[in-house]
């Protein structure tokens, strides 16, 4: 493999990273701007972070988003896991192909259509738009992602583990909770995190299905930006980026460590 830093390689890397991260860096830099004008640098300051925590509207929206995210991700994980189990285990029921196709339809459905159809449904059944409806909508949106993640793990699951558990006297229910669930848990956790992230950054569906008193953070940011970007919004976004970045970094370090430990263990085992 050629590892020398040719001029071409350096240029492509710089351009690629600039393309990806320049807007974000700009946003972070200007969140520390003293000036009220977003594009004019007026010196370093953290005052927008202070005022952010005094902005009741943004704080409320953050709280709504967190609650919607946790509840919808949890419900979606339960439903998505059940769907994945059914689709991988009971391969002979009528309409399985149709059903599995339908579970995954929201993956490719334009969000506008999902949002609009949910809105129509909620209006039709007379459900007042608010916290409940946006949570339900996010469950619909994220369930299929969980199903995909869990299903891909279940395909490689060794069924003889379950047979061994039953052979040793465990009832089917005990087998599921003591063997199947712990083994597929990593996939379920990553499914939950994916669902939570999707709920966190959804704007389109939330705009359709939310009502007064249940404004999520992306909706709040978007509506404020329409009145002009304030450094406060920059500060809010920077914090959001920080949370996501820390989450991703922690998760990947933990993953890497586990992987390395596992390899060491296996080498040690082979040596005897």
């Amino acid at each position, binding site marked *: 493999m050629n590892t020398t830093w040719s001029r071409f390689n350096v240029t492509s890397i710089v351009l690629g990273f600039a393309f990806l991260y320049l807007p974000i860096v700009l946003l972070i830099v200007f969140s520390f701007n003293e000036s009220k004008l977003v594009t004019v640098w007026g010196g370093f300051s953290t005052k927008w972070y202070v005022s952010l925590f005094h902005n009741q509207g943004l704080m409320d929206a953050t709280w709504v988003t967190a609650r919607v995210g946790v509840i919808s991700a949890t419900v979606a994980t339960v439903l998505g896991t059940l769907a994945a189990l059914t689709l991988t285990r009971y391969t002979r029921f009528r309409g399985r192909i149709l059903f599995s196709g339908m579970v995954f339809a929201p993956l490719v459905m334009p969000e506008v259509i999902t949002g609009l159809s949910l809105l129509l449904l909620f209006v039709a059944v007379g459900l007042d738009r608010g916290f409940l409806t946006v949570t339900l909508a996010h469950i619909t949106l994220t369930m299929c992602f969980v199903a995909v993640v869990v299903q891909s793990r279940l395909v490689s699951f*060794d069924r003889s*583990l379950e047979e061994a*558990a039953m*052979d040793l006297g465990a009832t089917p229910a005990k087998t599921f909770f003591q063997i199947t669930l712990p083994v597929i848990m990593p996939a379920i956790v990553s499914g939950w995190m994916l669902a939570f992230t999707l709920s966190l950054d959804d704007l389109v569906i939330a705009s359709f299905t939310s009502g007064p008193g249940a404004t999520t953070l992306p909706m709040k940011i978007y509506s404020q930006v329409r009145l002009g970007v304030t450094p406060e919004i920059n500060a809010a976004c920077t914090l959001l980026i920080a949370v996501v970045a820390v989450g991703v970094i922690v998760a990947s370090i933990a993953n890497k460590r586990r992987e390395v430990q*596992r390899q060491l263990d296996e080498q040690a085992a082979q040596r*005897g």
Partner: protein
Amino acid sequence: MKSLGSIRRDFAPWNDPNAKPYIQFDNVTKKFGDFTAVNNLSLTIFEREFFALLGASGCGKSTLLRMLAGFEEPSAGRILLDGQDLRGIPPHRRPVNMMFQSYALFPHMTVENNIAFGLKQEGMPKPDIEKRVAEMLKLVKLEQFAKRKPHQLSGGQRQRVALARSVAKRPKVLLLDEPLGALDKKLREETQFELMDLQQELGLTFVVVTHDQEEAMTMADRIAIMDKGEVMQVATPAEVYEAPTSRFVAHFVGNVNMFEGKVAERTANTTRITGSTGAQIVVDNGGAAAPNSDIVFAIRPEKIKVSSKKPVDAVNALEGEVYDVAYLGDMTVYHIKLDDGQIVRASALNASRITEDPLTWNDRAWVSFRPDAGVVLTR
């Protein structure tokens, strides 16, 4: 005292008409859609027996085992264990345990928790569980690995954990699905003897599925040879080898020479066979072969003697030419092309280091064998 093969067996309940069968397959059939995996099969296994199901992949041997464990229900017929019909009893209520080919160790549990799993399910008190687990770890010599997870073990250690877990509950019957399939050759041979010792020590009934004839011959009291969902022969290893009842069994176990032919003449003690290529063979055991019927004479390579001169007192002697020689160390294998065109495989034990008058390619040679050296097969 004369015996078939070179081992005397004192444990032989299958020869005792009063012995009660322990496991009984009664006309069992299993179909998967259009495919018949097991076809109207009947079989009895006795208590404390080490029983092997031997066959190529797809012959139905694993299906038979899975029906005994309860993972599959027979499409027809019934399976009895100690007189009790097993139909409808789910796997977790059957007094049998299975050791899986993939070992199926629970990856999120330590070795000791894997072994304790079955004991916890039956609600055994904690101190008793600890005692039994320690006992099992000692039995498979894994005491210092109790706290390890399965991925921290080598293949041989995993195999022993799987074994310990499956015998921890003291099942009435232990089922072993290709128990040594994933081990390398040397480890496999050691483990074969360990398994036999373990079975003696625990006094359990073992039913093992294998495709490896040497493994079955080494370990089992009796072997059932299966083909296409049917049992071809059930017999001791020595009987299977020395007295196969069909061409399939003769071919499947060990090497064999087959002479196609007709029964030319039967007397009280001898049967004369005319080979389809003209060879004349006299045997003292014609079995059920009727005069003038088409039969096959089967003889193992090591029962055939090769010499450069015509043996003076041999009843059966055929002339040919050395076609191929393979020196294997402990023995030498000759392929002799008879003058009628048939190639005969003969093997000679190298009991001494120096051979007088060695044979080589294209030498003229005689093959000879005793009248009781082979068997006459009618099917």
